[in-house]
């Protein structure tokens, strides 16, 4: 792992406009991302876990600038992508690609496989004709699919096969960084295993860096080098996979890990069943956003917001219990 990060996210914040009161004309905001800062290093897989509504998908989309950030910086090799536009942004986008959860909705049903995989190449390169077809065939071989499928259409494939084609399309421009947003969640376990293996092999071969977004803890533990745990738009804990899974310090991480059903009795934890559900991100609780559900909450947690601090060896926790 190199010293300077490939991607540095600084204070990234995204507020979506929500209901506006008719009488008072007051605008309220969904706080999807609140001051998120993470470094992602070359050739690592950073797993992002959290429950629905925690902002993990918004994080991926804001990094790609599919949604505009409200505040904050996304530095790719030192350049702030959040401040680029037009041609400069397009050039940087070649380095960053994304694979989505539902492979069926990420392809145009009227485009052949060739058309879909060739689209980024037509947009960004001067490849045309036979050279373009050859490059597409090469990309499909990279994801262990034969060139004979070039002229077939999305409905002819299973979910797992389509996800391979989506990966091939993401690789077309030789990106350095890929955001994988729940890439295996729509797939059956036997197929999920094939895709995970493929992603790991490709990372090795092409020296790729991944941001792997998922709600599935077993998958994230398998594939990630480091893991960020999110709750209500904030990163509450960040560290090496081993650290997060075996030495978690944040009460939310502990509860989340204990809630996941485990097959292996050796790894089964004593279950911490959290009361209630995730609060409304329009009106998050004051202080630590987890305090209303936290088994270890004290008076201080309702008043002041804990910040993410380094508790040693790159292990970051946002909890008053871990701070002086």
């Amino acid at each position, binding site marked *: 792992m190199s010293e300077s990060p490939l991607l540095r996210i600084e204070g990234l914040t995204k507020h979506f406009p929500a209901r506006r009161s008719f009488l008072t004309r007051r605008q309220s905001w969904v706080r999807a991302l609140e001051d998120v800062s993470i470094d992602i290093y070359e050739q690592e897989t950073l797993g992002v876990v959290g*429950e*629905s509504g925690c902002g993990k998908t918004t994080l991926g989309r804001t990094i790609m600038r599919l949604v505009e950030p409200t505040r904050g910086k996304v530095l790719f090799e030192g350049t702030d992508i959040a401040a680029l536009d037009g041609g400069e942004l397009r050039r940087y986008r070649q380095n960053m690609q994304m694979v989505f959860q539902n492979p069926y909705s990420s392809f145009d049903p009227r485009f052949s496989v060739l058309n879909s995989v060739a689209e980024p190449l037509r947009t960004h390169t001067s490849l045309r004709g036979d050279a373009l077809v050859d490059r597409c065939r090469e990309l499909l071989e990279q994801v262990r699919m034969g060139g004979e499928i070039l002229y077939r259409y999305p409905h002819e494939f*299973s979910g*797992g*096969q389509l996800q391979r084609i989506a990966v091939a399309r993401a690789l077309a421009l030789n990106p350095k960084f890929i955001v994988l947003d729940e890439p295996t969640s729509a797939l*059956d*376990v*036997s*197929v*999920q*295993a*094939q895709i*995970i*293996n493929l992603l*790991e*092999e490709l990372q090795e071969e092409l020296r790729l860096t991944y941001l792997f977004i998922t*709600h599935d*803890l*077993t*998958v994230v*533990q*398998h*594939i990630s080098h480091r893991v960020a745990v999110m709750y209500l738009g904030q990163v509450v804990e960040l560290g090496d*996979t081993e650290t997060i*899974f075996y030495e978690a310090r944040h009460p939310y991480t502990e*509860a*989340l890990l*204990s*809630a*996941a*059903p*485990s*097959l*292996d009795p*050796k*790894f*089964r934890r004593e*279950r911490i*069943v*959290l009361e*209630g*559900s*995730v609060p409304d991100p329009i009106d998050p609780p004051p202080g630590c956003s987890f305090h209303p559900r936290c088994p270890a909450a004290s008076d201080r947690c309702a008043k002041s917001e804990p910040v993410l601090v380094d508790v040693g060896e790159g292990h970051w926790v946002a909890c008053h219990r871990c701070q002086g």
Partner: protein
Amino acid sequence: MVSKALLSVEDLHVRFQTYAGVVRAVNGMTFGVRRGEIFGLVGESGCGKSVTGFSILRMVPHPGEIVRGRIEFDGENLLEKSRAAMRKIRGGRIAMIFQDPSASLNPVFSIGNQAKRVIRHHLDVDDTEAREAALRMFENVGLPDPVRVLETYPHELSGGMKQRVMTAMALSTGAELLIADEPTTALDVTIQAQILALFNRLREEMAISILLITHDLGVVAETCDRVAVAYAGSVVEMGRTEDVLYKLKHPYSQGLLAALPLPADRGQPLASIAGNVPDGIHLPSGCPFHPRCPYVMDVCSVERPPLVPVGGEGHAAACYLYGQEREA
């Protein structure tokens, strides 16, 4: 736990007539659920597990039809019952809840209205008594502030609360069997843990049986007493959960478990099963798993293997690898 079967499904066949051809969704499904147990029916998408659940209540959606088989509930064959008798059983003695609780609740009626209607359909009570019964069940499933919940509309509740409401409604008429079709799949893990804890408690306090249909082996490992693994419409392995999950015999169950990322095999590639799940129109001959099976033999493509005992306590697998005479 009493070991007499409350529900037994024998050699069930269900097919759907479609433009593309006849889809054989369920092909000889056989299993039994005992009184007071949580029985898991697991498999990947398209293995016929949900259609089996619908068949028990004779609610197979059009154009599906039950071709043959036997579904015995408390000694009576449900497939021979009249439609009126089935209406009494459905939601009465056997209740069902689904993956998406929002889709099961009517958005324009209050929760109380819907809960009372279910109770008054099945029990001879007036409005006040129905309200009391609903409140008791809401409290029982751990809904906070049940009086207020009665007044709310579905969109005001979270997914986990809606699933609790559905469970309460399902059990408010004194059901003996609850069919839960992927009840936690749409929920977050911390909420899933709450619902599974609720199932365990209800089983103990109310002695109900639960048929838990799921694709998640982790959920099975933590809640079910016994489990059946389904593939392409039939059971390939069945037995006590600890036997099926930790002493697996059938090559498909072995493959399925090996494909799961476990903490112990971090850093190694996952084992995956080659190929894809067959669709119900083009089912392979003989054993439906043979085209993907690493141990395939000549006999496998000719004749379908029956379930044979492979261990103690009713552990059975449908595979020619285990002690039976080769017939082909």
